């Protein structure tokens, strides 16, 4: 009995130490990425290429989802708001939900699923096929050549994607609210403009998406770089990217929101 207990405790301890170890090596990896970032700006086409693969390739899913999210928000919002006779406030509801929360968060979640997994799989595969070792043997740092450009591409792409998400979402909401439901066009926009604050809502939304960009891209890169060099290892790392990114985004969202609302 006692032996069992000790075994369980030991297992738990082992897992905790393992997590902390990984967190530490992740932090070191992050630091190295920042140190070796010079090249991704000096040879900007390396970064531009990655922006194409992370940002541009995620556009379709982001825009389509945003459109639907905006339309659903307008439908749901109208359904509730009209009970209180304030259906013109639908513009505010749609815009605030998108700009403050759904824009950055849903974009980050979709980004983790679309671009994050691609990054992890690509880097994991490069490791499995010894491409990273080969690079090292050619006296080229894989962190400077492979990791850093992808990191900056993710950090740049995320706020742009989130802004597009919010904008297209508002358009989707507009299409449902004004032409379909028949809310007054002027009221829709003026109420929105009166209640969405540039600093408190839009800038904070952008800050959020930048933080999510750093977190999602870093997790995807680290999981790829850290993946055991086997097919199974890479597939597991890809799954971990989605799980960890999603958790990180939601957790960070709570922390950031609480700071933003307090101040």
């Amino acid at each position, binding site marked *: 009995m006692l032996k069992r207990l000790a075994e369980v405790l030991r297992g738990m301890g082992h897992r905790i130490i393992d997590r902390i170890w990984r967190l530490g090596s992740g932090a070191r990896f992050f630091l190295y990425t920042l140190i070796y970032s010079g090249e991704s700006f000096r040879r900007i086409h390396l970064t531009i290429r990655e922006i194409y693969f992370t940002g541009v390739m995620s556009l379709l899913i982001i825009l389509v989802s945003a459109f639907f999210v905006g339309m659903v928000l307008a439908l749901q919002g109208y359904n509730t708001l009209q009970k209180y006779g304030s259906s013109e406030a639908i513009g505010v509801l749609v815009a605030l939900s998108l700009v403050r929360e759904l824009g950055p968060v849903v974009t980050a979640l979709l980004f983790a699923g679309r671009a994050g997994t691609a990054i992890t799989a690509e880097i994991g*595969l*490069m490791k499995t*096929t*010894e*491409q990273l*070792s*080969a690079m*090292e*043997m*050619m*006296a*080229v740092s894989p962190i400077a*050549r492979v990791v850093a450009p992808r990191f900056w591409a993710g950090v740049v792409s995320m706020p742009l994607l989130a802004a597009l998400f919010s904008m297209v979402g508002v358009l989707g909401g507009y299409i449902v609210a004004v032409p379909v439901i028949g809310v007054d066009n002027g009221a829709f926009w003026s109420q929105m403009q009166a209640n969405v604050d540039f600093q408190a809502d839009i800038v904070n939304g952008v800050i959020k998406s930048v933080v999510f960009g750093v977190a999602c891209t870093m997790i995807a890169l680290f999981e790829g770089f850290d993946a055991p060099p086997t097919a199974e290892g890479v597939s597991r790392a890809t799954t971990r990217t989605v799980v960890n990114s999603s958790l990180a985004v939601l957790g960070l969202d709570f922390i950031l929101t609480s700071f933003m609302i307090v101040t």
Partner: protein
Amino acid sequence: MADNIVEIDNLSFGYKGRLLHKGINMSFPRGKVIAIMGGSGSGKTTLLRLIGGQLVPTQGEVRVEGQVVHKQDRHGLFQLRRKMGMLFQFGALFTDLSVYENVAFPIREHADLPESIIRDLVMMKLNAVGLRGARNLMPTELSGGMARRVALARAIALDPSIIMYDEPFTGLDPISMSVTCNLIRSLNDALGATSILVTHDVKEAFSIADYVYIVANGVVEAEGAPDELRQSTLPFVHQFVHGEVDGPVPFHYSAPDYRRDMLRGQDA
């Protein structure tokens, strides 16, 4: 001894206390093709990584051109690595770059040359391996043997003085195998380089190598010119060179007595 480009001196290396190499001494004279042979899992590839400075020895040292590899800082290590070219087991071509760009990669990274000169260099290297016509293909469109040759062209792109080959013959058909085999020898002589060949293919290695080390159980079990080793009477060397089933390396992984093991039931 002064003309040894790489020297391995009393080298030990292991993971977590389990030693893979126990005091290995080797020397690689300039201009020769040297084969390191041994069974699967005897740490041959690890030796290459130790020479390349990707791993740090537990004990002893590796010297490349007189400089101790693991005592170099990052910059010094990268300087040393520019003198080395390495051919990985399956080529390790960059899958997102074309054949041309793969070969151009080390040149672009290390030298700020105009595009026309890069083009000439790449064409020369590709011509040397006979794949000038395949320059616009992607790595996924190449056969295993062609990929290996492109990787070889990339490895020699910067005219290294040391070329390392990690299992260059695995998974190749007989024709590709002899093509690769000849290339290794002819490139070595043309470039005046030193080739370190890690393999377990006895026939090919013996046909091109000047000197052979046979590694087993973490030590150099035997060394010598191919002809000497063929004549060797050492039981292990005899078994290895002639590929016999049983000998000093047993067919069975060490296990308790078969009859007792069966009778003990599944719990064992």
